[in-house]
């Protein structure tokens, strides 16, 4: 089945209030083109989740699209804090359910396996757990190991409405290849009701069949396939393009106050109709030359 779609239509398929699992890790493989389109269409009251908070969650929270974030902490690496997310937590406008990276991943894993709960060694003895027990008792509990009688902390599965994946290549059915590390993305896709794939490159199903071992997301999980080159900009896509340090610095600076964040959004999100125009505004071919990765080094 051909699931090729425009980014506009793929994003428009998400109702306000949905739970969206985001693919970014700090400044790597973030769903920036997706986030920009969500903001342009004003799809709000979202619940977002990811095992390490990243730039895609930060801009969505900063633009007022998300009410809730389930995550394992995060940053923009050396470029700074997640100012949009942190401001939401500090002022109380964002309900953040804060875990560790593995505990969020385990919640996706339980969801992907259809398990009712998953026991975990993490979180015990921490204030992360104290906060979760106090504010979200529906998501954490203790269970007794039926074989040893030992007490374990158990987490509830995460079942997002939609996962978003930024992939190196996909065919029109959504069979997708991700080069490089995949952090929590494969469990996200399998735990979610459906996945939207943003592919740097569209390849034929014949090409997928030639290297089936590279296909990490099977097409039957996917509802929309969108061809969006440089969809992670200013973040990186391994072996395709490097992160754009200048633009991440510009964003990190802007995200520090609601006013400068609005100026950023006006210029780079609301001020352009689509991702192609965004790339053109930032220099077009010159930009793409600057961030081009050496496929052997990966960056």
């Amino acid at each position, binding site marked *: 089945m051909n699931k090729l779609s425009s980014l506009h239509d793929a994003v428009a398929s998400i109702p306000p209030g949905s739970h969206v699992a985001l693919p970014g*890790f700090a*400044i790597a493989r973030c769903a920036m083109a997706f986030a920009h389109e969500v903001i342009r269409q004003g799809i709000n009251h979202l619940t977002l989740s990811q095992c390490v908070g990243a730039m895609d969650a930060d801009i969505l929270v900063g633009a007022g699209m998300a009410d809730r974030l389930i995550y394992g902490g995060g940053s923009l690496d050396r470029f700074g804090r997640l100012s949009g997310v942190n401001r939401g937590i*500090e002022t109380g406008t964002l309900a953040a359910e804060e*875990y560790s*990276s593995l505990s969020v991943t385990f919640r996706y894993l339980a969801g992907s396996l259809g398990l009712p709960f998953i026991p975990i060694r993490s979180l015990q003895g*921490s204030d992360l757990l104290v906060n979760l027990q106090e504010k979200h008792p529906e998501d954490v509990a203790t269970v007794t190991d039926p074989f040893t009688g030992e007490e374990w902390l158990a987490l509830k599965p995460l079942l997002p409405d939609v996962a978003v994946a930024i992939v190196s290549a996909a065919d029109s059915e959504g069979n997708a290849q991700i080069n490089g590390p995949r952090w*929590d993305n494969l469990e996200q896709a399998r735990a979610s009701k459906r996945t939207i794939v943003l592919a740097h490159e569209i390849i034929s199903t014949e090409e997928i069949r030639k290297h089936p071992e590279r296909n990490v997301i099977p097409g039957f999980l996917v509802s929309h396939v969108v061809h969006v080159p440089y969809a992670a900009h200013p973040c*990186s896509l391994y072996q395709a393009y490097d*992160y754009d340090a200048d633009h991440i610095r510009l964003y990190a600076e802007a995200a520090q106050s609601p006013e400068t964040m609005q100026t950023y959004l006006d210029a780079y999100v609301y001020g352009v109709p689509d991702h192609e125009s965004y790339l053109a505004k930032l220099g077009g071919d010159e930009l793409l030359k600057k961030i081009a990765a050496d496929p052997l080094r990966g*960056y």
Partner: protein
Amino acid sequence: MTSEYSPSELMAVAGSRELKDGQIVAVGLGLPVVASFLAKQTHAPNMTILFELGVVDPEPIDSGVGLADPRVWYRAKVLSSFVDILGTVLHKGRVDVGFLGGLEVDQFGNLNTTLVGDPRGKFKHMVGSGGANDIASCANKTVIIIRHEARKLKEAISFVTSPGYISGGSARADLNMRGGPERVITDKAIFGFHPETKRMQLLSIHPGNALEDVLNTMGFVPEMSGTIPFTEPPTQEQLRLIREQIDPTRMYMG
């Protein structure tokens, strides 16, 4: 080459001494990267280095801005996932040593990377856990690397992101948790943990510091017994490797 060295260089060398050949080590960016690569290039060539997001045994030739930078994944033996690294290796119990850092640490080795201020009042939210809580909970031992300042070494901290010995004594063992912090390495001293109380215990003082320098710049009095020796300084070869090969641009050493 001068035989003088910076406190950061001594911290990295002290960190590398905690690692043994053949071990599996979970590493975050910064000084632990230097400590681990130094160990691998000297006494522990068969050690395996892990980054939480799914990176096994990389050999970077360029410094990175964080774990999300493909520069630090270069020449890895495996590029996989959180379930693979933090799940089937760390959670399973195969990680021998995990490195941790933080905004503040208390006398029982509990770490805060979440917030500064009053969690019930006005606070500034920082990074949070990432894989740190998982490493603190699941590694067979951890080594904490932190600056020696009274605002960082405190009797009590404002938020426990990653547990050490919790309230001390048997508190950690009572929760059926394995491991726990083995060392705290600062720019003035090295601490272990008292076998009974599980409070930080002063083991050695870095050359050039007096006992008062160490005690006056921390928020509690650590356990001490007998004469406290000086920390062994770095060797010429260790300094050469750090400066010429591991961190020539001083990205990690600051």
